[in-house]
């Protein structure tokens, strides 16, 4: 199973490192990253594998949200099923 982590906010050093570390600590493996910086605005979509996640998924969601708050970013973590059901017949 996969999940999508979206990160938006003002650009600063070490955003990807911070998010990646939090993923690694929870046994979440990064599959794909697409990231841009427009002027000072940072936007990233990360697709991750949650098959070997070591904490309950909802706790991981909370942890990522908290990380976002700490760094002044908006971090949203969503299970892939919502995208699959909405865009695939």
């Amino acid at each position: 199973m996969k999940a999508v982590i979206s990160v938006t906010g003002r650009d600063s050093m070490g955003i990807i490192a911070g998010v990646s570390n939090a993923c690694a600590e929870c046994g979440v493996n990064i599959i794909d990253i697409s990231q841009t910086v427009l002027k000072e605005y940072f936007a990233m979509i990360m697709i991750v594998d949650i098959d070997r996640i070591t904490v309950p998924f909802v706790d991981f969601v909370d942890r990522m949200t908290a990380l976002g708050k700490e760094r002044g970013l908006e971090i949203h973590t969503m299970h892939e099923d919502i995208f699959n059901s909405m865009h695939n017949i």
Partner: protein
Amino acid sequence: MLDRNSILETINMIRDENLDIRTVTMGISLFDCVSDDGDRLCDKIYDKIMRRAEKLVPTACEIEKEYGIPIINKRLSVTPVSMIGGGLSEDGYLKIAKTLDRAAGELGVNFVGGFSAMVQKGMTEGARRMMRVIPEALSVTERVCSSVNVASTKAGINMDAVAMTGKIIKETARRTADRGSIGCAKFVVFANAPEDNPFMAGAFHGIGEPETVINVGVSGPGVVASAIRRAGDCSFSALADLIKKTAFKITRMGQLVACEASRRLGVPFGIVDLSLAPTPAVGDSVAHILEEMGLESVGAPGTTAALAMLNDAVKKGGTMASSFVGGLSGAFIPVSEDAGMIEAVAKGALSIEKLEAMTAVCSVGLDMIAIPGDTEEATVCGIIADEIAIGVINTKTTAVRVIPVCEKKVGDTVSFGGLLGYAPVIPVSRYSSEKFIARGGRIPAPIHSLKN
């Protein structure tokens, strides 16, 4: 593999276009609670609701978090109380309302629907006693919603019941006068009431339903309005296609949430209700969809046609997205809960008569409309009778939820708070319906051939 544009589209719908699941409603049958002792009945009702719905709110919150999709309301609907109360006294029925309110409060759901009666053809003594206590029940409880089905295409219109509901509305307004007559916002008069509707105030758990069931209502007027805006000047055929595609996506999300909730709670999945349900928030308005189609203001000539097209396209797109569709499924046009409708009434572009015409082509009916506090009871009954007749003749659900706000007159504004919003008081006809309503009896069921 997940496509980047699809991901961004979904995230954008949720964050910027107010896409959400409006309600996850658990229906619970109360038939096995029946008892000839009022207190025993209430105890059984309380125990059953607490047991069956124990995990409803935590489960919905969990789904909300995992999928990142807001679930605004968690609600309950129960078997129409008039059917399980039987020979109880008026006090007995009032106790049931208080019991429902207590259970809902403890479970953390915001409304429980089903303080209801089905009297389309006639009224049992029990239904009559229950209906008599509706005003008091709505004034002393916070979360209990009530409805009365006064007509159906098969049975015709029970005009005695129409007269009684007018009285209930006026009395409820008086009893909750200190709170903007808010009690009336929790009371709906129906024709052809659906038995699996998840939306309040008209939800109840119909007699053909299973022991427990999960029904989900989606929302998303903001998503449809944005899609139309982006499409620019296109023809109606292109517009209808666009709305269908958008409704499909919105409904798929409802289907996912309904299936997950059903699986996790171990309760059968009933239906997804496709309704476009607005809120007073900016960017979440059905009126603004109609205006995006090219109307200067909702209420302008063309409004009924625009709404008819919208409603039909939403149903066509949504039906394919869900395995079971039901409830009210259409576009809601409540005045106080829709920023565009509020604006249109305030500037005089939208009248109650135009709203009535609009209800002939979309779901529900005259909804959340504040009328002057001194509106005669017979006039309220006349408004109900007109709206109900539209439903009966056209074989569709219609409903009336009007609020004669005590001590308010045309031009005043009344606020109900939260999702119930606020509304300018709309003028109603000053000509009397008194003799018409006083006739009583039943309007016969309509003929189904010779259609014109």
